[in-house]
């Protein structure tokens, strides 16, 4: 029998096996995360739902039965289950199902883009702040503290309100809201790693700061940053739809879930269920992202 295989199964102790550790199957870090996830059916199930939402949004032109902008004076506010329009129509006669499907695109973009931007910008600032000298660190972190002093919705509304509505402004505003938090997470993680022994050993080997960051720091900082970013996505979707609800996000006639809630609100007494539909869409998307990110975090936190 192959000697290596025998040793790998723990039958014969290898040269230094007297130390006591059995030979185990070697698995990379990310591989072990995926392995743990495979047994977490809750996270997997909701992950599938998230995937479905994304696919539906991307494939909107192929899936949606009607043009989401096509109005019809006659066919206004038809209820759920109406012939031809399974989910009813809105106050301008547009098909609800199509608008919800197309709305997914905008809501997902406004949910994901700010988090992505904030991760890159805030993460970079945080790593710089963690490694920089006292002065630069203080400058960066105190500036972030000022933005942290606003409640998120207030800051988003303030910036969007001042800049005016629109999707781009909304994304910019939300990015500004999330950047301080990402910066803090990155800076804390960097500061923690910076003082560990293996960084000192790396310096003793002769490595410069950039090399150390690239090989040793980034890998260990990316974890907490990614975990925090994934938990921000659901918040971002909620905030973005909130901005649209207030009229500060996407403008009509774009199909955005928050905007739809706002316009349908006027018809609350006539077609109550119709009002509820966009909110259900927001809720499902948000909770799925939330649960998936919780699950991934659980899988990433435990080591070994």
């Amino acid at each position: 029998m192959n000697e290596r295989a025998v040793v790998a199964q723990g039958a014969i102790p290898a040269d230094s096996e007297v130390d006591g550790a059995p030979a185990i199957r070697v698995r990379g870090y990310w591989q072990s995360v995926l392995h743990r996830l495979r047994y977490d059916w809750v996270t997997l199930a909701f992950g599938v739902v998230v995937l479905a939402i994304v696919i539906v949004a991307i494939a909107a032109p192929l899936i949606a039965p009607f043009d989401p902008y096509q109005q019809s004076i006659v066919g206004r506010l038809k209820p759920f289950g109406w012939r031809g329009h399974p989910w009813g129509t809105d106050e301008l006669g547009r098909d609800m199902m199509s608008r919800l499907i197309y709305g997914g695109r905008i809501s997902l973009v406004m949910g994901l883009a700010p988090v992505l931007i904030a991760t890159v910008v805030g993460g970079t600032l945080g790593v710089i702040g963690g490694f920089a000298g006292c002065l630069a660190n203080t400058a960066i972190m105190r500036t972030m503290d000022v933005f942290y002093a606003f409640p998120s919705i207030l800051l988003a509304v303030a910036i969007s309100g001042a800049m005016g509505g629109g999707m781009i402004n909304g994304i910019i505003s939300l990015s500004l809201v999330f950047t301080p938090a990402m910066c803090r997470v990155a800076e804390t993680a960097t500061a923690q790693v910076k003082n560990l022994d293996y960084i000192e050993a790396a310096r003793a080997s002769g490595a410069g700061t950039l090399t150390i960051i690239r090989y040793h720091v980034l890998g260990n900082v990316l974890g907490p940053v990614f975990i925090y970013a994934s938990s921000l996505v659901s918040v971002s979707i909620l905030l973005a739809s909130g901005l649209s609800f207030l009229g500060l996000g996407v403008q009509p006639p774009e199909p955005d879930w928050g905007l739809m809630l706002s316009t349908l609100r006027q018809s609350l007494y006539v077609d109550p269920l119709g009002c509820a539909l966009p909110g259900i869409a927001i809720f499902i998307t948000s909770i799925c992202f939330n649960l998936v990110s919780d699950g991934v975090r659980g899988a990433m936190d435990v080591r070994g």
Partner: protein
Amino acid sequence: MLGYVIRRVLFAIPIALGVSVVCFSLVYLAPGDPLQTVLPPDATAETIAIVKHAYGFDRPIPVQYAIWLWHVLHGDFGRSIASQRAVTLEVFGALGNTAMLALFAAPLSFMVGYGMGALAGCFPGQATDRIVTGAAVIGVSLPNYWLGLVLVIIFAVEYMVLPASGMGQSGSAAFTLWHWSDAQFLVLPVITLAMIPIGIIARTTRAAVAEVRSQDFVTTLRAMGLGEGAVIRHVLKNASPQVLAVMGLQFGYLMGGSILVETVFTWPGSGFLLFKAIINRDIPVLQGTILALSLIFVATNLVVDLLQAVLDPRIRRA
């Protein structure tokens, strides 16, 4: 201890100044001439010139900031474009209404959230825990303004037991708390507003309680023969500082983040004032409201930090 208090208070001052800078610069984020933002569109050339000089729009930006700050510190937030009343009056009136919502929503969310979280933390992994955790996750994933709408649909449209919007039968000026005819307007907004804090407080309490329970000193207490009830009392006491910190933060959010709920229920609080200001492009009111709300948030954080230091001796050393 006193040193910590002084340091923490001193730390809040540059933050407050930074907040004021952000509020000040909102005017410059707005597209168009900043002068247009503080004047009604039909202002005469004479008025324009007066305002220009008074606000210093012809001076460099740092000077403008200083002038603005000077006015603010003297309680002059400018005049609302829409109503021409002093912004201070509008803001403080509205703040009172928001405070009423917050003062009801806070105890509700604290008690419900703490209770749920403590229950879940004492029975981790079991049915209670899963239900509570599930409810908490739902609470923070729901758009709270949508919950408001749903509640309105159920209670005001379908069953017509509670009013759909507004504050009081005869408006906010005549609002009396101890008459149900007015007080019923509070019910739905308060429940809606409390939803997210309940979720967050429940989650935090559960985590804190579960963590404290797993510590060695709890095993020691049980080994000494202490009954489960007494043990739980000790656990809750140790978990309290963390939970109180979160509660305090949530109170700040209740004050500062109420815009969505107030818009749904047309509750004339500071959030609704902000909403109207945005629609009307009434920048002085926008600035004033945001400044007031964020300063309240900063002050709440400060109080929470100081309270935490009182309760948790480990923090005072830092």
